[in-house]
């Protein structure tokens, strides 16, 4: 099922590339078709999905890969993965729609890379063999790199390079940790294996556990990203084309949070519990620091990028509070931020497409000429400042509730992030939408964009007003974590 899913995406990517030579409009249609047909393998699962009586692993596929090290091509799906896979596919659709008019140069190769990176991400969300996970983790970078480096804006090379180097550094450290973990496991079990479950069984000595955990942690935190390892993000976002920013914000950052929830916490519960206070502090700092940086930016995309840093801080906060609410909050935050930031980037992209600038100083008064776009922008701005009734609020509130009991001071620190969020979010609205119109007017959102945005609006409202199904879906995975942490 999952293998079908991934291979569908890869095949679609190839077709998209080939079709370029036939007709320049073809690739995007193929991309859309591919993403839609990617739901086909999941149909049965989604049909008879019953969150009430659901076992942890919905799907579990495994075939031999590298017998020398007993490495298997092992894909599996639980509630958490399913949620993120769905998010990936949806945001993929959004990204393709966002790229619809913008990408005219070599569209085939563009969509090839887009779909490949999506395939890589989905693989990462499903892989349960550490080697396999690492492979996907790295593979999704290359197409991402190309997307930024070829179709990006002025300073794209620098940004792409920075993005790749940062993540690669994390990746290598993680590879180190994986090797160490496997060898330690070999030492007292006598068999080499990269299997998630096998490695989860075995107990490390405290010190060893700490160092190995640190390797994973750094890799994931770079991807998340967390201050002070966040610097690749603003550049990457600023220079990437709209669709790629959407994918970056909505999906790629989530792999970091997913990694924490899937690997770091279950594999090293004690060690994680040990460093939890420090991590919580870091998270709180990066929430506030990100917000402050966001406020000081003049480039709209940069502003939104820094706001992502601030929001992902909540994910980290949730991961290390070790309570069910906090973990649920982290998951919800990943989804909600995925949608809201994707929408924001899409809208900023739309503005850039119309006015060829992202500079707040040059924008202003857009409401007078493009009210629909402005309304949408206002909506998502409000969402990102955590308006109750929208996904982000529920997520952040759950995170705070979960972490307050154990770390009251840090939680209050993080809560001040809400004020700062309001400040920088309103800055966006104030500088772009209101005041006197500085630029010549332009066409408003067309039907495609309105529908695209409306779908995301509905998603956010759903997350905000009726998140229970999602919570139930993730509950099993969260329970696993609780069991692992012996809470």
């Amino acid at each position, binding site marked *: 099922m999952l293998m079908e899913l991934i291979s569908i995406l890869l095949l679609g990517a190839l077709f998209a590339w080939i079709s370029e030579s036939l007709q320049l409009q073809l690739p995007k249609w193929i991309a859309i078709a591919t993403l839609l047909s990617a739901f086909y393998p999941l149909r049965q699962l989604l049909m008879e999905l019953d969150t009430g009586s659901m076992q942890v692993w919905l799907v579990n596929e495994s075939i031999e890969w590298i017998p020398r090290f007993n490495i298997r091509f092992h894909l599996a799906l639980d509630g958490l993965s399913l949620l993120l896979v769905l998010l990936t596919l949806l945001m993929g659709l959004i990204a393709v729609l966002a790229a619809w008019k913008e990408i005219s140069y070599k569209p085939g190769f563009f969509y090839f890379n887009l779909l490949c990176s999506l395939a890589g991400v989905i693989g990462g969300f499903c892989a349960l063999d550490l080697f396999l996970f690492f492979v996907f983790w790295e593979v999704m970078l290359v197409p991402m790199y190309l997307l930024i480096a070829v179709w990006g804006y002025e300073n794209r090379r620098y940004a792409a390079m920075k993005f790749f180097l940062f993540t690669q550094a994390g990746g290598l450290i993680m590879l180190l940790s994986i090797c160490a973990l496997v060898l330690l496991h070999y030492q007292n079990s006598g068999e080499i294996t990269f299997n998630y479950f096998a490695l989860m069984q075995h107990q490390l000595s405290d010190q060893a556990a700490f160092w190995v955990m640190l390797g994973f942690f750094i890799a994931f935190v770079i991807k998340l990203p967390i201050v002070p390892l966040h610097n690749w993000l603003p550049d990457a976002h600023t220079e990437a084309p709209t669709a790629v920013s959407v994918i970056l914000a909505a999906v790629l950052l989530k792999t970091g949070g997913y990694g924490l929830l899937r690997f770091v916490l279950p594999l090293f519960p004690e060690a994680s519990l040990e460093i939890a206070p420090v991590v919580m502090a870091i998270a709180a700092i990066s929430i506030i620091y990100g917000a*402050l940086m966001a406020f000081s*930016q003049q480039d709209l995309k940069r502003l939104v990028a820094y706001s992502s840093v601030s929001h992902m801080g909540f994910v980290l906060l949730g991961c290390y509070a070790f309570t069910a609410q906090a973990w649920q909050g982290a998951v919800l935050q990943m989804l909600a931020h995925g949608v809201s930031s994707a929408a924001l980037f899409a809208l900023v992209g739309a503005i850039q497409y119309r006015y060829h600038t992202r500079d707040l100083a040059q924008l202003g008064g857009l409401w007078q000429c493009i009210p629909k776009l402005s309304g949408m922008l206002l909506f998502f701005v409000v969402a990102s400042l955590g308006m109750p*009734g929208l996904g982000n609020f529920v997520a952040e509130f759950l995170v705070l509730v979960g972490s*307050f009991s154990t770390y009251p001071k840090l939680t209050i620190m993080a809560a*001040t992030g*809400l*004020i700062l969020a309001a400040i920088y979010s309103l800055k966006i*609205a104030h500088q772009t939408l*209101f005041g006197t119109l500085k630029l010549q007017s332009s066409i408003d959102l067309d039907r495609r964009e309105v529908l695209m945005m409306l779908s995301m609006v509905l998603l956010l409202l759903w997350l905000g007003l009726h998140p*229970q199904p999602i919570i139930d879906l993730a509950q099993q995975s969260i329970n696993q974590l609780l069991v692992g942490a012996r809470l």
Partner: protein
Amino acid sequence: MQQQYLSQLLLAVVLLPLLSATLLLLVALFSVNLKNLWVATLAVAAIAGSAICVVLIHLQLADTVNFSFSYTYANWLNVGSFSAAFGVYLDGLSLVMISIVSGVGFLIHLYSVGFMAKDQDFQRFFIYLNLFVAAMLVLVLADNLLMLFLGWEGVGLCSYLLIGFWHQKHANSLAANKAFIMTRIGDTAMAIALLLLFIQLGTLDIQLLQQQAVQLWPLQNSQGAVLDSVTVCALLLLAGAVGKSGQLPLQSWLPDAMAGPTPVSALIHAATMVTAGVYLVARFHQLFSLSPLAMQAVATIGAITLIIAATAALVQRDVKRILAYSTISQIGYMFLALGAGAYSAAVFHLMTHAFFKALLFLAAGALIYCMQHQHNIFRMGGLRSKLPLICICFFFGCAALAALPLMSGFFSKELILQKLLDKEMYGFWLVALSGAFITAFYSFRLFFVVFFGSTLQLPDAKPATSMKIALSVLVLLSIFGGIKPSGLAAVFSESELASDHNLAIVLLTIAVPLSAIAVCWFVFKKQLFNRNIKSDKLRGLHNFLYSGWGFDQLYNSLFVRPFIKATDSNKKDFIDSFYTGLSKLSQLSHHYLSTVQNGQLRWYSASLVLFSIAAMTYLLTS
């Protein structure tokens, strides 16, 4: 059966405005052009609908004196021990509130139809207004704190949108930001209170929570008032209330909020939203009563705000700013009452205030509407004959505000003073009394300056019919609205029988405003109001009062400027310089290493020799 009926009615009350808002929004989104008439009909009809529902609820509950009704419609979220639902809780308090919201809301909608008729953003205005009413109703009906917070933030958002409604003007959007951010500060404190309450009591259901609080935290005597958890919770909640209700120290957004259209000022920044803070404290009166310290804090904040705002109102020139400051000070009265434990009195004053302040604002709106958007009262004068209706409205509004006998305001304010005396809080009583004096003074200053004296500018328009209707209804309300709603006492479990009114006191409370008016009239006759002040000491005082005791300047220099400076200083993100430094380093070393590659054969062979010598020395030394 009755349960079902009530729950459906309440649902309708909330959903009608919401639905009309969404409908209008979607229509706008898919760029279907709608005639203003249709928009107005839909919007007003929705509010009318919910108002009718409220009336039905009244009829349903007419016979029952002490009732409390709660109903859960749907589950919201439910994680482990944490759970919140979409549920309503109806008792005397919330009934009063929804009556005010839907009733006054309806009148103001009606008024707006006329007032906004020429505005090209007619539709957007009504979307926002409907949305606001819905959110406000959610706020007052919520049975758990999370849902209350939903409404709480919702009204905040709508107020933001409506203050900045005329977004072409930069200043308006700035005022909107100020309003939202300052309230947000309070809201965040309130959110923390939510967390704390949940952790301490394990629930967010308001009633349940308070019962548990009563059991968990025994009342401790006032002198031994330490910062125990109940006090902390209460104070955090209070911070939220203060933010919303424009009390000290978060009051300075309210005068700027007058940038919005006048109906908005009437609905949001006079009648309903700004009194949400009062509602909150009243709603949590059990919790507050547990902590004397918190109660004192409430009373003190109320008293100080009362005086500051009233004195600020004395010297304003903009008619709307005068009313804004008077709103602040009236809410100060309510807080004072709450702090004194006179909850029902506070809510009573809330109601009457909603009537006469709405009236005053709408009248002011009509005035501005007729006077080519003239806000400065000293550019007007002698309009008594030109705009008789507005003059009447103003008269009764000011009378109620000044608590002249037999006006609605009189009963509520008199009750507050009475309660203060009963509670032997003489200091506060004096403050309240002097406040009453100042209130009467500034309200009639406004009245005299605008409607008496020589005519400076002629009106060029007449108020529209819908406006007239709304105004006249409100006039009646603010005259005869002084009937204390039954059921409040039951909510706050107070003794219904009012303590025997000491005649002397009553006379005093009547005399104070009258004397104030007399003084005012005298001063007006002497032309002292619009004369520019000679002695700069006095001018300094005047400016100080005019700027609302200089809170804006204080906050600017204390928070805003430092914040901006700090963030701007780090625009480039100093952490990045570390990474750039790394790349610089590697480039530098690349260049140094390259210089070794000079292509000289003999140097190459020398390098071999040198290395071997170095290695040998290393081996020998080690």
